[in-house]
């Protein structure tokens, strides 16, 4: 069984300040972990992925995430928020055993205040 918990449904930051979006997971197998971003009225776009290589993963638009097995976490960070970062972010876990069951978190809406 696998699951994903996004700890915050809404996060609000000021432009130019750091972003932290939290994600915890559980998985019976060695997981692959992802962050997707969805801008209003758009499809989902892959931001970054962890697939058992380096634990610190860099993605697009200055985002990065660190896989911490001991904490079962995969938090998303960015040093300085930009107005264009306002969107919904989904943490996703995929099992490597059996078929690729893909489980989404409930999403975190990021608001960036000018």
């Amino acid at each position, binding site marked *: 069984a696998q699951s994903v918990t996004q700890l915050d449904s809404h996060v609000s930051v000021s432009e130019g300040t750091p972003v932290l979006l939290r994600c915890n997971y559980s998985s019976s197998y060695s997981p692959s972990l992802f962050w997707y971003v969805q801008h209003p009225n758009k*499809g*989902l776009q892959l931001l970054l992925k962890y697939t058992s290589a380096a634990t610190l993963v860099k993605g697009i638009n200055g985002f990065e995430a660190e896989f911490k097995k001991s904490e079962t976490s995969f938090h998303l960070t960015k040093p300085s928020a930009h107005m264009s970062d306002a969107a919904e972010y*989904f943490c*996703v876990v*995929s099992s490597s055993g059996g*078929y*690729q069951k*893909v489980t*989404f978190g409930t999403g975190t809406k990021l608001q960036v205040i000018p």
Partner: protein
Amino acid sequence: GAGVSQSPSNKVTEKGKDVELRCDPISGHTALYWYRQSLGQGLEFLIYFQGNSAPDKSGLPSDRFSAERTGGSVSTLTIQRTQQEDSAVYLCASNSAGVRTGELFFGEGSRLTVL
């Protein structure tokens, strides 16, 4: 095509009518997923195809929902006797089972409004 294509992008229908939503995955992608995203909700898994078979259809909410895939390519999600609670954005995604990372490529969705 270059990406996952979904049609129609918007569909408004009356309660009780049937609707069909189409997904054209990336060429060569053997795995195809349907998700539903209701207003203010996360993504709800509906069904997974590997080739033309559906090893996991556990997310279909009722027997009014069905899906098929032909030729290992295009998939159609059918909702019979639509209800207002079926209003949502229906997202399709695909990937290649040969790359077992689980990364999904999404279409832009079909927005269904049931009046």
